[in-house]
């Protein structure tokens, strides 16, 4: 049913394909992985610029009309942080030719051609980029960066991370920095594009019923004219914590947002992964987790209290929305649950539930083009691709002792409270 292939098609360029007719759509997705460094701003603007116009469709209105004519072909664009690297995403999702309303309409071939033109033949390649184009893109990116303030949960998590990783590449905003974006020139962007095509570690995923071989040939063709010198970004994993630090910032909010950053002791992104995932689920990843059942259900302190493992950097974040006056009790209770893990004091039911929940969710990875895509594309920097069924097997083999062992290496590093100033004492 799933006809998978993974192969290298150019130096540092990997192609993942999944030929299947069970979806209504095809998805072609490209990721370029670069080190997260002082070039972050110029890199960050690329996926947006590249997907807003191209040689044949020189402005976004013409491009959007073309996408609508391709039955609402949908652009994937964005940047993501994975450890100390910056992932630039671009891609297209479009319905399969079988569902076109007219005979012999070739949606797939046209969509693939369009996407490759976006990446390899941007409007600025031949110097046709105008000052207006550049100003528009800079404005849009700056507004996106500024709007990170709007979602307070995300904002609080971001602030905690920045404090915890001060002086570390991991603290660099993957969308770039406003002052740097403001100063970006046409030359900076051209150089960033050239550099990305030459040096990024690249993965391309093609999922669906389209003519994969033909698209593969077209991709190879484009890469044959590029002098590839791939550089693989590296991530520093550190488990050193001198002393847990606590920080507060104030904002006009109805509810305070608590974030606790912990270092897990993972030495790389696959180090004891199954044991860490089970531990995270048990701690705060599922509705019967220790955090949910104690901080929410037993103490009635919050609506949400959960933990998240970021394997790319070997860190974990706990997040909760609380009343400021409950800060000490919530923090103490959360850290106490970490001791429960270390001391092997959790129930068999919760332990089994954690494993079952992860395995059940891994079983569904192949059920949407998006989940297949994100599973494989985020492994762009892994030499060996981990399949969901393999991780599932590893999860099943995790023991209570494994959980205690890895829990003991998890150390709280930074406690951050975004304190609500508008809180009223109603409860």
């Amino acid at each position, binding site marked *: 049913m799933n006809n998978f292939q993974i192969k290298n098609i150019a130096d540092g360029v990997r192609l993942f394909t999944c030929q299947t007719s*069970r979806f209504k759509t095809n998805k072609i997705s490209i990721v370029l992985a670069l080190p997260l460094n002082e070039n972050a701003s110029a890199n960050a603007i690329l996926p947006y610029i590249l997907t807003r116009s191209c040689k044949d469709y020189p402005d976004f209105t013409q491009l*959007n009309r073309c996408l609508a004519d391709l039955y609402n072909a949908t652009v994937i664009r964005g940047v993501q942080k994975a450890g100390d690297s910056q992932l630039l995403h671009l891609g297209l999702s479009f319905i399969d030719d079988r569902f076109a309303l007219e005979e012999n309409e070739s949606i797939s071939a046209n969509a693939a051609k369009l996407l490759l033109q976006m990446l390899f033949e941007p409007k600025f390649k031949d110097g046709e980029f105008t000052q207006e184009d550049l100003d528009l893109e800079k404005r849009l990116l700056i507004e996106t960066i500024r709007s990170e303030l*709007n979602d307070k949960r995300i904002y609080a998590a971001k602030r905690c991370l920045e404090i915890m990783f001060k002086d570390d590449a991991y603290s660099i905003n993957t969308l770039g920095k406003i002052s740097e974006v403001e100063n970006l020139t046409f030359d900076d962007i051209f150089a960033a594009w050239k550099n990305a095509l030459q040096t990024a570690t690249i993965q391309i995923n093609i999922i669906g019923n389209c003519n994969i071989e033909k698209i593969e040939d077209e991709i190879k063709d484009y890469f044959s004219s590029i002098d590839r010198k791939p550089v693989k970004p590296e991530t520093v994993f550190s488990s050193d914590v001198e002393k847990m630090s606590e920080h507060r910032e104030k904002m006009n909010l109805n509810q305070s947002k608590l974030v606790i950053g912990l270092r897990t002791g993972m030495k790389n992104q696959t180090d004891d992964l199954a044991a860490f995932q089970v531990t995270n689920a048990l701690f705060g990843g599922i509705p019967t987790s220790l955090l949910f059942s104690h901080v929410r259900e037993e103490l009635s302190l919050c609506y949400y209290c959960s933990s998240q493992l970021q394997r790319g950097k070997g860190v974990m974040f706990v997040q909760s929305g609380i009343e400021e006056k409950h800060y000490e009790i919530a923090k103490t209770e959360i850290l106490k649950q970490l001791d429960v893990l270390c001391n092997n004091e959790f129930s068999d039911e919760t332990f089994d539930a954690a494993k079952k929940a992860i395995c059940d969710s891994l079983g569904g990875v192949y059920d949407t083009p998006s989940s297949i895509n994100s599973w494989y594309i985020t492994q762009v920097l892994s030499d060996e691709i981990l399949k969901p069924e393999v991780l599932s097997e590893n999860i099943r083999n995790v023991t209570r002792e494994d959980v205690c062992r890895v829990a003991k290496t998890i150390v709280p590093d930074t406690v951050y409270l975004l304190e609500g100033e508008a809180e009223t004492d109603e409860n």
Partner: protein
Amino acid sequence: MKIEKIVHEKLDEFYYKINHDSGLTIYVMPKPGYASSYAVFGTKYGSIDTCFRLEGEEEFTTVPEGIAHFLEHKLFESEELDAFQLYAQTGANANAYTSFDRTCYIFACTGDFKGSLKILLDFVQSPYFTQKTVAKEQGIIGQEIKMTQDNPGWALLFNLLECLYHNHPVKIEIAGTVDSIAKIDADLLYKCYNTFYSLSNMTLCVAGNVSVDDVLEIADAQLKKSEPKVIERTFPEEPDEIVCDYKEVSLPVSSPLFMLGFKEKMDSTERSLKERIAAKVLMEILCGDSSELYKELFNENLINTTFSFEYFNGFGHSACFFEGESNDPKKVRDRIIEGVRKLRENGIDEKEFIRVKKALYGAMVMEYNDVDDLANSLAEAHFDNIGFFDDFKVIEELTVEDVKAVLDYALKPEYCALSVISPKE
């Protein structure tokens, strides 16, 4: 029991509609090749149902705002294990949501489907409310309300609804307020439960790695047959006019957020599927991302990529909404009103109309990838009393005249209000 198979040849999809002896309508959409299944057990009961009676009852009951959502939280509990603890044994990922007009209990799983379905049908049919458990939930939901108060998008929407509606309960916050939920007690919860959780007011929709036999095996054993109940809802009269045309509040946001709404005069209680699809086409032609107006607004730095629109409608209300981020929301409003005037004057371009229709058809096809979307949409279609594939027929047959007909009653500048969240200094 009646089982009907409905097929869409071109789309290569089918589903079964089952009128179960218990009084419940069940939909099953098998998806070959999928490992996941997704189930929705829903009732046509949401935040707008604040005043009601059952046929035969003398008095209407008025209940505190937010009670449908509160009830959703409390159903997860029982005298022994709560539903999350039961699902923990099967590995299913369970949740629930309450909207303006429905409450749905859902799970996704790739493992023990029958075991998970049994849990779902069982806990939703087994209410257990006490004063103690109600009090505990008031703390948790109180925090949920405060969390949504910190969400600028939520404030934007409800401020707009307050501008548009004098009396319609759609303007009430779905979760209620800290004060209104303090008035909820176990008796009121039982009253609402016994009114709205009758199987004739509910549906079960399942999609994915499922078969009719599996679903019926569990449904036959778990569903408690109930006599159909006739629910009478009463809504206060809503004038055609809006309440006020502008509301602005300050919150910690980076730049002003706006939501613009055009209230519509209603001659019937609900918009038909054709009217709804025609309205979407109209909005897309007016300011979709391939339109001239969108291009102008974008190039004049009045909007960014957060700009979007929605046809917001339900029982007794309908409106066109536009939202986004802008340094000059009033100017955006004026330009949209101007765009509508030009559209009325110049008519609808046939080429644009065809392009938008094609794109909308593509978007409809795309929805058939995800089993969670499918199960939720099946429930929505059931509560709207339409066939699941009807939208394809409507879009294929839609004409420019249908869109013009919507333009006759929609997007009237005199019924337009603007909600703005401005950055706090």
